[in-house]
């Protein structure tokens, strides 16, 4: 009897965690997979329709547009947010008051995507910051209703997102820089390498692990981009600025096409898994080649 308790009791420690995760995360994820093969509107029981949702998805011009927007979000956030983060991290330590500059880039990290959205809606308003500044410097002709014009509204939101996340990448690269062997950089300096050569041939390759981390994070976050779009444009006008995550929400909870929404969720998941897997595999291979 005593022995039996001894064997079972370790599992009791794990049970609450496992139960919570299974009920609220794992089972729903599996169930979404099943629902994606049905036609379901909550009012009548789900009807199995095979892969019809998936076929429709590839022919749906709105979904194609969402996919392209998701692609823009991903590519531009990686280039701009990770790029600026790297630039901030490398540049800021050469300045006096480095702490002040770090603080400035760090502030947006404490704000939620919804708050960032609210602030930037006001910035892009017809009488907002951007138009006021453009008028002031004599470029009033450029002023417009930024969030209503396609495709510029997507790029405006991407800029807001870069503002919000560059600091996070800066923090990652600052950690990476701390672990760099200073001797290597000094050696390159003695060999007569200029600042750019030192950066491009020594610092940047040594930062590869952190670059992988930062790019993976940006990749996953922008593929799943939802909050800021929901707040700033709601995916509009005429569904022009939706990403896949926004389309999924709209098809499911506005149009009540749960089967179709589930299919979008599954496709989004496959995209996230495949791209992050390819990227990480490629990078770990490259890291092995370097050392």
């Amino acid at each position, binding site marked *: 009897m005593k022995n039996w308790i001894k064997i079972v*009791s370790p599992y009791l420690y794990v049970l609450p965690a*496992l139960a919570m995760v299974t009920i609220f995360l794992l089972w*729903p994820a599996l169930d*979404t997979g099943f629902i994606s093969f049905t036609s379901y509107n909550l009012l009548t029981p789900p009807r199995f329709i095979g892969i019809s949702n998936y076929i429709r998805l590839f022919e749906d011009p709105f979904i194609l547009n969402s996919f392209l927007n998701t692609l823009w979000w991903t590519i531009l956030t990686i280039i701009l947010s990770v790029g600026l983060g790297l630039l901030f991290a490398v540049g800021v330590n050469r300045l006096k008051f480095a702490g002040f500059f770090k603080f400035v880039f760090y502030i947006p990290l404490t704000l939620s995507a919804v708050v960032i959205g609210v602030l930037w809606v*006001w910035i892009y308003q017809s009488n907002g910051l951007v138009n006021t500044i453009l008028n002031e410097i004599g470029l009033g002709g450029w002023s417009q209703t930024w969030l209503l014009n396609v495709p510029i509204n997507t790029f405006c939101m991407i800029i807001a997102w870069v503002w919000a996340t560059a600091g996070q990448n800066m*923090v990652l690269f*600052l950690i990476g820089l701390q672990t760099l062997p200073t001797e290597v950089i000094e050696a390159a300096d003695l060999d007569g390498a200029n600042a750019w050569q030192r950066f491009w041939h020594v610092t940047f390759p040594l930062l590869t692990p952190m670059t992988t981390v930062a790019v993976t994070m940006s990749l996953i976050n922008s*593929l799943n981009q939802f909050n800021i779009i929901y*707040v700033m444009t709601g995916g509009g006008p005429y569904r022009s600025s939706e990403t896949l995550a926004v389309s999924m929400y709209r098809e499911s909870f506005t149009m009540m096409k749960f089967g179709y929404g589930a299919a979008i969720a599954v496709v989004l998941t496959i995209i996230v898994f495949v791209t992050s897997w390819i990227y990480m595999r490629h990078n770990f291979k490259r890291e092995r080649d370097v050392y």
Partner: protein
Amino acid sequence: MSIRMSFKKISKILLYAFFITIALLWLLPIGSSILLSFKTINDYMNQTFWQLPTKFNFVANIEYAWNSANIGTFILNSIVYATVGAIVAIIIASLAAFSIVRLKLKGRNSLFGLIFIGTMFPFQMFLIPLYIMYLSTGLYNTKIGLILFYIAICIPFATFVFRGFFISVPKELHEAAKLDGCSDLGVYAKIFMPMSLPAISVVFLFQFTWVWNDLLFGMTLSTSNSVRPVMVGLAQLSGENLTNVPGLIAGAWIASLPTIIVFILLRRYFSQGLVLHVAG
């Protein structure tokens, strides 16, 4: 030599000019929106953004946001969700991690994998079944329903952090305590948890912030103002196309205050946790 010196000097000046410009650009949305939250609607309509308000309207704006726009209720809801969610998740996850690392458990790696896989999916994968389940069980639009979900979503990352932390605790400590007659649960409560302040801080910082900032699940699983969390309330308000923009911006800033405070208090755990977050 002197050419090189002056070249260095010029590049230094350019570097400063560049970073000062960028820093000003970064501060502009924050500074101008804080200024706006001090203005009356009239000042907002008639002034440019850098002008100082003719009348300090800060208190009235906060009052508007807190009462008329209901942000107060939303904030109080979210304080409960974020605190309870993070703390209960810390307890459940640390128990699981303790057992996975220290107790002789068959299949511990697959158990950990099962718990951890929960964070890998895009959130869209959970929404529809949760919504249906909540409607059919009566959890929909209840505070307890939201709390349960927030606990669950916090568990995978928390288990990951505690597992990493517990692995670094020397085995001998556990064995010595057991020789002294301490039970496993006693070892967990008296030795492991008091040592885990760094792990607890990392998890609290990230999970409190996550729950506080959540829009998607709060919006999907609740519908009335008395239940909805703060970011849903704020998004709702900003979608209403209202005239009181200073009030809205003031509301956005008070809704950010709790996470700003948590960030300031636990700031040294941030970079640590950030790396863990991606590593996981």
